């Protein structure tokens, strides 16, 4: 896999949380490029700003200062509605807590981003089924999340993340709520998606899964302290994810 131009570029990003009595500097002077097709991970201790960084990149939050380009377009000054549209079209999320909607079936959960994106019903069905097939969950599409195991829920979450063919997948501690077997399976799934061409940025504090990423960005007290590039052997084992 050849890494190309920066898909994401952050320049001088700062994030300060203001409360009544104090201000907390969550991120300071962040400069970061994520290249298209790259599988990068952000590592650091709890409270170092990993999730905040992912939220800013995922347009779930806005920086206090600094500039952000996504696929060459400046996105730090977008309105809430414009950010929602960019999230829908270009960003897929995988959360630690899965964040599936319990009152929707597996199929409906995966279909939901397409509905918000204005995709026609017939096309939606086809795309959602294809996404579920990619994570080997098409046989459970009429089930509700509560009827699935943790690993299965995360695979459904992955299907929902990729259904709209986003530019980048953002995974926030995707194995945090899983046992080691399922955790490994989910990581294999991400590796498979990466092998198929997805750009992935993952936040984790678990060094066991560090080997899956090509680049590790170390974060400490809101600052990027180190970056390291690695050689990774890609094995596509999508169907090996256990239930």
């Amino acid at each position, binding site marked *: 896999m050849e890494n190309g131009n920066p898909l994401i570029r952050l320049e001088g990003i700062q994030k300060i949380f203001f409360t009544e009595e104090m201000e907390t500097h969550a991120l300071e002077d962040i400069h970061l490029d994520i290249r298209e097709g790259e599988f990068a991970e952000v590592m650091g201790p709890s409270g170092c700003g990993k999730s905040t960084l992912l939220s800013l990149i995922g347009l779930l939050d806005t920086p206090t200062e600094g500039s952000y380009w996504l696929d060459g377009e400046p996105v730090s000054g977008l309105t809430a*509605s414009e950010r929602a549209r960019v999230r829908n079209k270009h960003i897929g999320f995988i959360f630690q807590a899965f*964040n599936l909607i319990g009152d929707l079936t597996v199929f409906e959960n995966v279909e939901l981003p397409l509905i*918000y994106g204005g995709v026609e019903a017939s096309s939606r069905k086809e795309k959602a089924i294809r996404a579920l097939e990619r994570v080997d969950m098409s046989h459970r599409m009429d089930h509700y999340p509560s009827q699935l195991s943790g690993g299965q829920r995360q695979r459904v979450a992955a299907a929902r993340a990729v259904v709209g063919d986003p530019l980048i997948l953002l995974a926030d501690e995707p194995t945090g709520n899983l046992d080691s077997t399922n955790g490994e399976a989910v990581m294999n799934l991400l590796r498979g998606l990466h092998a198929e061409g997805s750009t992935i940025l993952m936040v984790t504090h678990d060094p066991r899964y560090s080997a899956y990423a090509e680049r590790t960005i170390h974060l400490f007290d809101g600052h990027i302290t180190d970056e390291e590039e690695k050689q990774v052997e890609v094995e596509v084992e999508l169907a090996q994810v256990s239930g």
Partner: protein
Amino acid sequence: MAMDGFINDVKFGVRMLIKSPVLSLIAIVAFSLGIGLTTTVFSIVNGAMYKGLPFDEADRIVSVWRNNPERDIDRGGVTLYDYVEYRDQNSSLESFGLWGGGAVNLVGADDKPERYQGARVTANMFDILRVAPVLGRGFLPQEEEPGADPVMILGYEVWQEKFDGSPDVIGMAVRTNGETRTIVGVAPEGFKFPIEADMWTPIEVNPLEHDRADGPQFPGFGRLKPGVSVDRASADLATIGMRLEQEYPESNEGFAPIVEPFTKFVIGDDLHALLFTMLGAAIGVLLIGCANVANLLFARAAVREKEVAVRSAIGANRKQIIRQLLIEVGVLSAIGGAIGVLIGIGGVAWFNRAISTDPPPFWMSFDLDGRVMMFVIAISGLAAVAAGLFPALRATGKGLNEALNDEGRGSSSGLRMGRVTSAIVIGEVAISCGLLIAAGLMIKSVAQVSNVDMPFGIESIFTARLNLPETDYPDADARTDFYREFLQRLQGTPGIEAATLSDGLPARGNGLRTIELEGGEYPTEQDYPRAREGIVTPGYFATFQAPVLDGRAFEFADTKDNLPVALVNRSFVREYFEDGVGLGKRFRIHQGEDVYDWMIVVGVVPDMKMEGIGNNGESPAGYYVAVDQFAEILGNTVSVGARTTGDPGAMATRVRETLATMDPNLPVYDAMSMQQVIDQATMFYRVFGTLFVAFGLAALFLAAVGLYGVMSFSVSQRRREMGIRMALGAEEGRLIRLAMRRGLTQLAIGSVLGIALAALATRPLQVILYEVDARDPVIFGGVVLILAMVGVLASYIPARRVSQIHPAEALQAG
């Protein structure tokens, strides 16, 4: 795509409804009650005020009256002189006519006399209204001229019932009020202009028959020219009126014509205010329902904030999420609306049954027509927005990051329920308090009406009315002879213990008359006292079992050849005779100079509700004079009262037979028992009172449910805090007080606002309150007490529940 998304949102809304059955049920009940009551009232308002006349371009049909504020004349009739002037000189009316009421005794081919509501109209009635007879023709212009052949037009219903719908009715001669008339046409089905007429005869437009100041007066009606407003027509006729006032001051001074939409005279200002107060009360119930639902949704929003955040994270914009949340409420309000329609159908059916004894004008019908259904759809939608928008805005207002990273069980840490729900609860309590006070006043009024202590006998009394046509009974002597003879025959009829004829029945309200007391000094006209007058035959007080308190009752010897005598009631004595003695005192009717002779008081009788039922604050002081001595005033219509030994309902036939022995052309009409007369007189209070009672009960129920729901949720959010306090050693009583404090504060503020609201809003209810002050302190105090009890209970139950959980459990509840 929009429709596709909408269907998905509806599907999800239905799923959420099933998932939270208790919330859904409460919301549906709240919406149903609110929408149902509002629909019922709007159907009544729609029928009474918005349907209008069922004629072509009916908004151009107007009434024309004459006012004279100096003489206290509001909506007076137009004289024939003025009619001709207005008709010929105005530039704003396309056509102009007159109408007058008048009962008709009709004897058809079957020789059976029957009584109908008739109307006298100018010959152009059908042209003005743009209505064509279904059979025969309308009136010809020459048929309103003096000496024209007497003709009439039948109503469709009479034609069907009395003449079997036969086309041969055209040209048939019938006797009406003692006069032979030829039927020339049949009006279309349902046509009962001007109010409830069954047949029509032409008014004889012959001004010269009387002086300008005298002669009959009729309400006017006409059709505005295209593009002419009511105001412009008013100004146009006012100009003519001013000229007439200058030219003929003796007859026209102080009179000014007014033009208004035709149907307006039926709904006076009081009723207008009442109808809208009722609609306001019903909307109040709906608002309470919406407040309940809003509070429930706030509670649900707290547990759904993560779902909302997920939707947002995957690309839903705020508008899409708000739409989806609103559609969920919309599903609930749609179901509530559907049930509300059923409640409305039931409510309107009840209303129609309740008023059936006194039907409204022909153009009023109370049903759920297209306009009402549009209203239901609109208020269901508005209710959904009112209940759902704010919770939806709050639910989508939280930071995404915070919601998504919340590992918990959907806690509401970020959702500040405080001020908003407090405001909703305070508003809910205030509206409930206002409605309950209105309902309390009504309950008291209905109770007073139901238990009204009539100071006369009601049991076993038969009543009816009788009209003597002027053609057969042209003068007072003829009528007096007839009354005397008929009364004696009635008193001899088997099954009748006592009988009387009078100008009206007790409790139906006697007219006011200006009088002059002997020895009294009255510098101006306004200084003359006014009292209520009853014109009765001997046997009146015996029939109604009202004992003569002092002196004697009327006797057959009290004729016009003897000294004029009068009976006065207790209030009359109290009001006009300082020494408290009525017997022997003299007074007379004051009308011009010495028109009436002095009458001597020969008896004192009890107060028999001469002021009528419900005339709050009106003086009951009145007097009675003998029919034989005042037949000129009595006119040709009398009420019959007879105390019977058996069922009064079975007496109509015998009275008819007795009457037929004297004049087979005379019908007996309005036959009913005295109890029915009282029921009819109190119908207005009972019907509207019952509606307000329904509003009050619905408001109380919803307020109680709402307070309980909010308190329940509020304390459940404080479980952890309670656990900490318990762990620190707080006693149960202290925790309960702490949990209840907020609810009780809201209750107190809401009650104060509610009292202020009620003090402002209950004034228009005075017209339907029977001997109850619209600011009755007992009701105000009682309602606050009831609301306080309900509020304390609604706060106490959840407060106690949360104070009894185990500290460890509460602390885990985070």
